């Protein structure tokens, strides 16, 4: 009985967050923290920080933080309920938009929108990288590593990014060891 009440509460918290997370998962991390830590006590503040770090470092979307909170609160079923509640509603909205978007492919204003978003997307990609590097006490070593990886990637675009990632992490570790 207690379990199903927790699952219902997870659903009620995360489904609306899905629809207001305009600008991406991080836009609602603050609200997620408030609900999970302060209102419902599903995780402690310390646990929330740890889960955040894990979701950033592990492969896949950083928003799997939501899934981890569900798992911490109510086990595997909690993880499943939160995943459905957090990822499905917004995906339906985007899917409906995509249907209209593709129907008008080829019209003049469709191409204008596609071309018009190109410089904005490029600016946002760079901005996202800087946001990551500014957060969480990343020092000069992190900036240096990032720029080395970026330069390597531009110089040798045909190498798989995985190689650049491994070399970058090794460089960072080496730098940490000698500095």
């Amino acid at each position, binding site marked *: 009985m207690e379990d199903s009440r927790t699952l219902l509460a997870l659903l009620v918290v995360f489904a609306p967050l899905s629809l207001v997370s305009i600008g991406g998962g991080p836009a609602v991390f603050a609200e997620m923290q408030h609900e999970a830590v302060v209102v419902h006590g599903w995780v402690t503040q310390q646990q929330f920080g740890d889960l955040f770090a894990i979701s*950033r*470092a592990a492969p896949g979307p950083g928003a799997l933080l939501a899934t981890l909170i569900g798992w911490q609160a109510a086990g595997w079923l909690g993880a499943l309920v939160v995943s459905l509640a957090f990822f499905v509603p917004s995906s339906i909205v*985007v899917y409906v938009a995509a249907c209209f978007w593709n129907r008008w492919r080829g019209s003049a204003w469709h191409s204008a929108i596609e*071309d018009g978003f*190109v*410089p*904005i997307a490029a600016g946002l990609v760079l901005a996202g990288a800087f946001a990551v590097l500014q957060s969480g006490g990343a020092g000069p070593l992190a900036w240096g590593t990032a720029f080395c990886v970026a330069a390597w990637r531009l110089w040798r675009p045909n190498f798989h990014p995985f190689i650049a990632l491994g070399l970058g992490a090794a460089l960072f570790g080496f730098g940490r060891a000698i500095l």
Partner: protein
Amino acid sequence: MKTSAVDATEPRPPFSAGFAELFLLFSKIGLSSFGGGVSVWMHTALVERRGWLDETEFSSALALARIMPGVNIINLAVLIGHRLIGLSGAVAAVLGLLVGPSLIVIAAAILYRRFAGVTILDVALAGTAASAAGLLIGMGVKSGGRIVRRGLASSGRTAQGVGTIVIFAATFVLVGVLRLPTVPTVLCLAPCSLALAWFGGRKASMERNDDGG
């Protein structure tokens, strides 16, 4: 099929992938994107390696994914999956990105409880995150460079070319350096950028008509 009508208006390389192939590809993308930056891996796999999407399609999907509600990467998966094979593609792409990584992240949380505070682990995580940011910088600089080159080369349409460069730079400075919130900033810049593309595109097509006639 719905996609055949789309292909008729816009020729593209022969494309045949089913639910299973798309699910496996997006699983691979999800599982290999350590430290974030999933969009870089999608770009590598779909645009650079397979040519299933062109640069403009990918960029506009990326921008649309960012201004709609929901996690950017999941939205991008919905848009790309739908573009490639419709509803089943969108479902395959999203499931691929979520199922494998969810299991890994929960396994990681279980392990982390046991090994928290081990220095080499923390250094590896921090190094991976910094490198992932570097991949993002590489991707942004590459498409930014293309915008700047094209902008400077646009003879006869200088205002549009320079305007595009300004939009690119302004987006980066406002969101990345000054840390203004993404959605209002994009909502302010998008109309300017769309107007530039609209009038530039019309002028370009008129010039083409003049050449033809």
